[in-house]
Structure formats: structure tokens, C-alpha cells
């Protein structure tokens, strides 16, 4: 059972982590598009 709880913990942190990192990328892309607009 311990291994399942371990997997659940990795799952929770992992999913949140992926969303967090990609959310940072989202903000950075928006910022870059604003800072360097295409002609």
C-alpha cells in the first residue's frame, strides 16, 4: 500500500508541477509577444 501512496504523492505533485511550469511558459510567451511584436 505504501508504494501506491508514494505514487499518489508523485502524481499530485507531478501534475501540479507540469501545469505550473507550462503556466510560466504561457506567461513568458505572452510577455515576449508583447515585447517583440511582429511588424
Amino acid at each position: 500500500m505504501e508504494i501506491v501512496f508514494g505514487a499518489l504523492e508523485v502524481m499530485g505533485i507531478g501534475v501540479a508541477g507540469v501545469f505550473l511550469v507550462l503556466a510560466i511558459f504561457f506567461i513568458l510567451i505572452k510577455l515576449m509577444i508583447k515585447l517583440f511584436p511582429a511588424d
Partner: protein
Amino acid sequence: MDKLSKLLEGINGLTWQNVVMLAIGCVLIYLAIKKEYEPLLLLPIGFGAIMTNIPLSSAVGEHGFLTVLYNAGIVNELFPILIFIAVGAMIDFSPLLKQPVTLFFGAAAQFGIFASMLLAAAANLIWPGVFSLKEAAAIGIIGAADGPTSIFVGNLFAPKYMGAITVAAYSYMALVPMIQPPVIKALTTREERMIRMDVDYGVKVSKPVLILFPIVVTIVAGIVAPISVPLIGSLMFGNLIRECGVLDRLSQTAQNELGNLVTLLLGITIGSTMVAEQFLTLNTLLILSIGLLAFVFDTAFGVLFAKFVNLFLKRKINPMIGGCGISAFPMSARIVQKMAQKEDPTNFVLMPAIGANVAGQIGSIVAGAIILALLGQGGN
């Protein structure tokens, strides 16, 4: 008489396990040639499996060339890293940069990795000790639909299952056109599949953004998870030489010569890990089954996430786009475009689908890196 028995050593050493593995190698070659399922990888993997499972084969062992290649390119993770440079040089990130919101589909679809990891860990409730947590994570990563990431994580966490994990990852990637459509169809209505989307939301991407993107992503991902630097860094390095505009020759070399050469060596080396005693086990069957479910979970969670997002949007997103958040590029995007046009021949969702698909590439590497960061130190 002695000399004759030496000649017969190979025949005498042949076991039923060897015969089954030789047959599996032939099946992989058949699938690669006849069905064109990921031939670049499955053919070398199949042939590598054949060379490895011939009794007393000198292709493996201390001085065997396959073992030399394994030690030179897999143990130290060199081959997957080089493949990432080639893949990075092939990817055009502009569909993603035009619609950065598709990044979240690339995040949602990675849920399949973690759900499969949980499933592999839960297998211990039925067969105690079948997989350690690290092995479960390596199996889950099949859901990344990303060969190099699967090899990278698999080699660190589950070296004895490398053959099964890699074969599952590449086989199911080839089967994406069969796995995804029924899942997407089951989770969406005809009206949802007919939703139209703007091609590029009128956004144009400037050259500085295309150049800055790989640099910024490497720095940010590296700071968040330093262990991700080789994975994301090599992908983004490849992309930078593509986008910088002054390294066309290197970009072409990375896309063609480097990609082809490493793919050739990678496949045959992975095939050499398919040793009968390790491959013909219940664990392999479990890995192949969980790997298939990983692709189903990826697709399902991606679509369900898009439907959830639609609850809050005035201008709805075609939820099929969510299913493209996996790394199987550009197959997944093409499938969704085909499904959209089946319902309405004038509906074009290819660009947002490609955006989500490219986001899936980044998402899968980030997910792999996070798993490495979480489980990389100590524990089992």
C-alpha cells in the same frame, strides 16, 4: 568430433525462449516493413533483438558491438540527448507561440503518465513486489508518447525493462491513429467535434520571439528542475540552431544526418536489451498493457480538460484539440483534423491541433523531468 560439437554449440544452446524472441524480432521487422509502424525504430529494434537472442551471440557480451554501443550511448544517455537535438531542429514552435493557451492541453494530457504510474504501482496490490516506485514511474512515462524521454527515464529507473518500455512506447506511437479516434469519439458529441476554431487568432510571431523562446524555456525549466537540463536543453538547442537563421548547415545536419545516424544506432542498441530471460515475463505483458492504457488516459484526460475549460469560455474550443496534447507529433494533430473534417469538410482545426501537439512535446519532457526530480534521489 570435438570440432563438430563446437560447430553445433549454437544449435545445442537454442532454447524455446530464444526461438520466441527471434520470432518477436521478426514480427517487429514485419510491422516496420509491411505495416510501416515506426519503421525507423522498429526495424532496427527487431534486428537487434534477433542478433541478441541467437545463442552464444558475440554481438553481445563484454566485447560485443551491441554492448559497446549500449555502454557508449544508452547507459550515459547520450543517444536520446542527440535525438532531442535532431527533434528540436525539426520542430516549428510558431503554432504554439501564436496560441500559447494550447500549452495547457500539453499539460493536461500528461496526466496519463501519472495515472499509468499509479496503475503500475497498484499492480503491487495483486502481485507484491512486481514493480518498484521508480519502475512504475518508468512504465508510466510510456504515456509521454515520446521515445527519447521514455529511454532516458527508463534507463535510469528501470534498466531491466528498457526493451519492453521502448518497444511499447514506439509501437503505441505508431498505433496512435487507431488508439486515439475511438477514445475522442466516445468522449465528444458530434456538435463538439464540429466546433470551429480561428486559424491563428491573428497573432504573428516575430523572429526575436522565435529565437528567445528556446533560450528562455531552457533557463526556466532548468532552474525549476535542474535535472531537466539535458532533456529540454538539447531539444531547445536543436530548435535554436533552426531558428537563429545563421546556422542553416548545422540545422540541416541535425535534422538529417545526426537524426538518421543516431536513430539507426539507438534502435539496434535498444533491440539488444530484449534478452529472452528478461523480456519473456509477466512483467513485460503488464508493461505493454499499462503502456496502452497510458495512451488512452493521455487522450481522455486531454479531451476532458478541454471540455472542462469550455465550461468557462464564451468562444468554445473544439475539445478534440485536447487529445493532441501528447508528444506523438504530428500524427495526433493530423488525426484530429481528419476527424473534424469527417463531421464538417470545411472545418480546419489543424493549426491549433499542431499547437497542442507541440505543447505535448514540451509537456512530456517537463513531466519526465519532474518525475526524475521527485524520484531521482534515494528511495526505490
